């Protein structure tokens, strides 16, 4: 079992290494280097030379990759051209803000998805299922910028209950942030919940049709005891990985939501750095977002390994 965990861990690292190569090579092969892209029309003379020196563009690409990768491992992402400061300083508060947003959405989303998924599965094809499933299809298919815009239009503009656009400096405290994040959290959680609830539903339905559930019924196990002891542990296990993938995928969607709400997180930084053509920051973001993705998947793998008796004993026996 430890071997398996170790193997997954190494695979995660390999993935990250490939990501670093992709981001680095991607930026290399696209036309224009970091300096010409950033400076655009002013890319000549002293300014260009200073920039090239600053980023070390005068040394060969592979050497530059090695020193960049070495620094990244040390936790140093380099220098932001647009911010005129170390990237780490730019990233710090942004990561914190995004984390607040994402964790709030996850904390609301996962339990809600579990409950809705289980309800829809147990009342399959009955009223609760039809209503919830229909709402879920709508909320997962409509793009986040539309649902976010509608939320602002209805809640903030027509009803005037909450602030529609987050206008706060990047370094506010958590409690100052709280009222501002309610709408963005709802926008993100809506899509996430809908996706996960659908998966939980089909997983539960699959288990409910299995031989061992029929056996439990024939054994006289009361309904709810059967649901909690026999159905859910087996239904939720395979859902863990899929849930992880959904969460990771939604990182992309968070970018758009942050832009709609003008929220100072990583997502808006993505747009800002690309609009400013600040390639060192783009590279850093690529690595960071990929690490989040890899870590979420690794945690999901760990959970599955720990909870699945089949995998657990399989490894100790061999």
């Amino acid at each position, binding site marked *: 079992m430890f071997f398996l965990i170790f193997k997954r861990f190494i695979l995660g690292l390999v993935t990250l290494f490939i990501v670093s190569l992709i981001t680095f090579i991607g930026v290399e092969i696209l036309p224009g280097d970091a300096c010409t892209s950033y400076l655009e029309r002013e890319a000549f003379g002293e300014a260009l030379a200073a920039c090239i020196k600053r980023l070390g563009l005068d040394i060969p690409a592979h050497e530059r990759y090695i020193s960049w990768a070495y620094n990244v491992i040390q936790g140093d992402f380099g220098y932001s051209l647009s911010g005129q400061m170390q990237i780490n300083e730019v990233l710090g508060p942004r990561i914190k803000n995004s984390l607040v947003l994402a964790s709030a959405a996850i904390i609301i989303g996962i339990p809600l998805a579990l409950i809705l998924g289980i309800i829809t599965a147990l009342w399959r094809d009955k009223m609760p299922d039809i209503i919830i499933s229909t709402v879920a299809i709508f909320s997962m298919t409509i793009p986040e910028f539309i649902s976010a815009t509608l939320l602002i239009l209805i809640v903030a503009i027509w009803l005037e209950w909450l602030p529609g656009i987050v206008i706060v400096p990047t370094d506010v405290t958590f409690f100052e942030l709280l009222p501002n994040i309610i709408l963005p959290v709802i926008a993100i959680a809506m899509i996430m919940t809908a996706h996960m609830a659908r998966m939980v539903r089909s997983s539960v339905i699959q288990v409910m*049709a*299995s*031989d*061992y*559930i*029929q*056996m*439990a*019924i*024939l*054994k*006289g*196990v*009361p*309904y709810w005891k059967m649901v909690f*002891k*026999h159905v859910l*542990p*087996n239904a939720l*296990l395979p859902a863990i990985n899929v849930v992880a993938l959904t969460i990771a995928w939604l990182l992309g969607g968070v970018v758009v939501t942050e832009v709609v709400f003008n929220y100072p997180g990583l997502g808006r930084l993505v747009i800002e750095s690309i609009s400013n053509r600040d390639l060192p920051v783009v590279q850093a973001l690529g690595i960071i977002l990929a690490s989040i993705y890899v870590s979420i998947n690794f945690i999901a793998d760990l959970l599955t390994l720990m909870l*699945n*008796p*089949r995998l657990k*004993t399989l490894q100790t*026996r061999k």
Partner: protein
Amino acid sequence: MNTNIQEIKDLSIGFKSQKGKQISILRNITTNIRKGETVGIVGESGSGKSTLALAMMGYIKHGLFTTGGECLFKSQDLLSLNNKELEDIRGRKIAMIPQNAGQALTPNLKIGYQIEEALKLHTDFSKAKREQKISELLNQVRLPSPSIMALRYPHELSGGQQQRVAVAMALAGNPELLLLDEPTTGLDVTTQAHVLELLKDLAKDTGTSMVYVSHDLGAIAQVCDRVIVMYSGEIVLEGPVRKILKEPIHPYTYGLLKSIPKLSLSGLPDSMPGSQPQPGNIGSGCSFYDRCNFSSDECKFKVPELEYLSEIDTSVRCFNHSELISKTSEQKITNELKKEIIIDEILDLKDVSISYAKQGIIDQFLNKVTDTNPTVKDINININKGETIALVGESGSGKSTILKSIAGLLKTKDGYIKFNKEKLLSGDLKKRNSDDLRSIQLIFQNPDESLNPNHTVEQILSQPLKLYFGLTGNKLKSSIAELLKKVRLGAFYMSRYPRQLSGGEKQRIAVARAFAARPDIILCDEVTSALDVSVQAAVLDLLQKLKEELGTTYVFVSHDLAVVKAISDRVAVLYQGRLCEIGPSKDVYQFPSHPYTEVLIGAVLEPDPDIRPKLVAEDIVEEKPPEIGCSFQGRCPRILGDKCRNETPPWQFGDNGNAIRCHIDIEELKIQQS
């Protein structure tokens, strides 16, 4: 006083088809289960027997509904109870032992927990008492070291052990009625015999009434007092086990019994034409009309009623049952195999060993041999032109592995396979030439897997014809029609997809595909084990007819000793990838034989309540063959000691042509076994 524990009155169950038509699965079932008796419900797949068993617990599967009748358990209609009331009856009054215990045990819960759950629900034992009871139950079903077993998860047990756990779980609530739904299907022959023995003892000790559902008349014969025979959703015959199995007075049961291969008879069993109609396709008359040899005009338009004949305590649903009474005494098989084998070797397996173990990169680099204990080892078999040689053994005996290596799908590790006396067959498929490939064809166990679901029959059969003979156009079409005719199917089958065919028809297509190549050798891998008994006989008959017509050689792999006896000229018995015995089939089935053959033959269940299986060895599951010594040492009832453990046994030859690989002197074996 009412002596019936369960009474089923006029029960009908059906479902709604996609087009909204109501289709019935059970039709007007009326029967009683008496206290303390064991009743067998027998029928082919699709006869509705499992649905009936589940209804006896008040359980109707999702999508099905009752269209009439009641299911009285102690005068209480189970079908009208609510869930709460049913929970009190299920497990406590009526318990179920499921077909596939491996899938019926919840995977995330330990064995001990699952049994304790039943105890908690249905007894008021204290915690300590419950733990004691768990050990008792596990002991009762003869599982070794109960305290360790209780801590295991279901997947850590073998199939036989899982089945025993399911039995223990059912016994936990001390039920008055036990329903068994094919409890031994899917188990190895010896394990099956042991589980049946256990069930029989339990019935005797506890006095519980049992309903035993099975397609296997052999198992039914061993445990049941009374038998109910079902055919396409109806009871067609019901009566005492001896009457039903020895003097069946319903044409279906009569035909079914004749179609079962038996150890006591040689030659192919009679086959029954056709197959059971699908639910919804039953005509206006008797549902067996199409396949019946005794039918009259009346049968076509009128459904016979179940008629009770008090003098023999039997109910029968047939207008012409009296005609059968005179017939049933004769039980002779006339289809003796033609046995004209010319000793002309076609295939020679010499010192073949096959290993599944993959070499590590480093060992590969150092050219080191890592696997000293390959899955299959020391196989020497000569196969003659036109004979049928059978490879027999339980799961893990390596019989299919050998087949694959002959087909070129697996490389041999050592030894060689020679074809037509001179040609060495390469272990690499790509290195075999087209003619060698054509000469050897395969038929698989499960036609659902071996026929491409997206191809029509025409496409399936045209593959070998195009590949080997380059046929096209009308020539191709007429060849296909000819092939279909050969396997007794009409040319209109060409445009059908496999899913539109019955199991027997699918296997016929697979047979046709193999013969399309005009092969010299056909490798048959458990070709009848996925089929119903009545269909199995027809497929065996077809294989035999084709062979007589075309002189093909068969290598026939099976776990079923009776089937093997019926079709093969010679038999090779395998255990853990090693040969135990080889010889003409009529001799292998006689003593003296290898102790493993003895165990296998002893465990065969004959559809006759007067022939009991002989259980001589434990049904332990071995995962790996022993490194040295005799392969059967772990389970041999006649083990001599260190000699068997350390030395590879020598070949000994019996008087009648069979060769045995055993340390015990063959004369000594003869004395011991007789």
